[in-house]
């Protein structure tokens, strides 16, 4: 059984089919890429999986537990957390406090004060924000706030993390650093990632497998190489 199993998920917004019968399986420890033009339904798929949006049809199963109908906080405590494409920092709290909340609540079990501090430090280091831990989150640059999104998801202790365009706005050096970080986190902690990225190069480098959505439908699925040679993807994506 797959770690994350998405079974025939559809989402209708009024007359618009944002997702149309999408199925996919993510294996444990994998980095799974999700591609598609603007409006393809990538963020909506994240919202359905994380419990922010109820699907019109279909269901999501994570690590053997049916997620559909559960609250986002419950889903997080089960070990699945997402980031937001439009960042949502706790603006009036410091960077460290942002992570502390995630560490306090994310895992669903009570950690000791020193365990919390360790989780926060590690998350800060992973995204290179340690020197800004005492700043209010509102004072970070956009790139800093994107990294805070990742760190906060990490600090929840989630085993599967969905990253929604976290590299948008980073410069090429920062992108390579981020790629290395994600690889390292997967290696050291066995984390699983589903990533949506507009920086296609990054997605191609990092992903084990890629799914391409267009207007809410699956149009291609395979290794980065297969996707690179796919005819419909080329049409949709590169015009």
């Amino acid at each position, binding site marked *: 059984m797959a770690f994350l199993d998405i079974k025939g998920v559809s989402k209708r917004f009024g007359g618009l089919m944002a997702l149309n019968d999408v199925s996919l399986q993510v294996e444990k420890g994998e980095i799974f890429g999700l591609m598609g033009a603007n409006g393809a339904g990538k963020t909506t798929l994240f919202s359905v999986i994380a419990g922010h949006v109820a699907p019109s049809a279909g269901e999501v199963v994570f690590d053997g537990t049916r997620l559909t109908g559960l609250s*986002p906080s*419950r889903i997080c*405590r089960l070990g699945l957390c997402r980031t937001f494409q439009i960042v*949502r920092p*706790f603006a009036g709290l410091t960077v460290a*406090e942002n992570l502390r909340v995630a560490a306090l609540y994310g895992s669903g079990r009570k950690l000791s004060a020193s365990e919390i501090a360790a989780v926060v430090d590690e998350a800060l280091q992973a995204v290179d924000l340690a020197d800004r831990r005492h700043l209010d989150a509102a004072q970070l640059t956009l790139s800093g706030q994107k990294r805070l999104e990742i760190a906060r998801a990490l600090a929840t202790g989630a085993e599967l993390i969905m990253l929604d365009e976290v590299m948008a706005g980073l410069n090429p050096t920062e992108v390579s650093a981020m790629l290395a970080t994600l690889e390292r986190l997967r290696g050291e902690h066995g984390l699983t990632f589903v990533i949506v990225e507009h920086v296609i190069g990054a997605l191609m480098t990092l992903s084990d497998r890629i799914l391409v959505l267009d207007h809410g439908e699956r149009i291609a699925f395979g290794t980065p190489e297969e996707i690179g040679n796919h005819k419909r993807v080329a049409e949709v994506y590169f015009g």
Partner: protein
Amino acid sequence: MILGLALAVFGVAVPFIGSPYMMGVVFQVAMWIALAQSWSMLSATTGYLSLGHAVFYGIGAYVCVLLTGTLPFELALLAAAGSAGLFAALVGMPVLRVRGPYFVILTYGLSELVRHVVMRIESALGSFGRMIFDVPSTEVLLWWMVGLAVLATLGAYAIRHSRFGAGLAAIREDEVAAETVGVPVTRLKLLAFIASAIIPGAVGGLALLRTSYFEPAQAFDPVISFTIVTMALVGGTETVRGPILGAVGFALLSELLWSSLPQLYMIVLGLTLIGFILFVPKGLSGLLGRIGRAA
């Protein structure tokens, strides 16, 4: 902390040294500290500004007036606190679904609704105000009120420095993000709402015993809600000493005003609130902090 301790000691000692007038003032100050501090448990932490806390005070007073005579006053006060908490638990879920100005208006409306319902019930029963006899001495009531002020302050402090408080702060900053990182938003908001209602229930009961007269329009007076909000905001919502400073400052100011110019009370309340929101958003507490750092 030191400020709170000094006030508490003063409050306990005042019956031995002070005049009846002095005891009256201290009773009032302790009452407003207890109320503003309780209010802050919900509103300062989550940013859900309640403009209806008079309802908990009123329920406490009503329950207390119905029970004194049958029960010892300590138990009546306990029942008053419990009823206010129970009421919060019952209405909390739907009320806390709305945010921002809607929450402010809804809590105000709810408080007014309960006031009118109780007024109707009382007039249907042919009661135009209830007197109670056999109330505890002024000293005992004062000590109870000082105790509630201390309890509310300790409670507010404990909440702010707990895991619970961290969750509430996240809710204030961004409810969706809080939910996403595992904070059980609905449950925490409800708990904060209940916590902020309990002590005001007991305060309402004590205030009733002090005046020994119950009249619904007075017990559920919306001015109580306005005063709580004004004190908390003037004192500053970012620290636990804020509501203390606001309550002390305001209670003293209103003593002056009531004795000299009672008709100006509401006007001064309004002007102070506007002035502080515009020019001193962090309240007296923030002001003191700045002076402290400058010195």
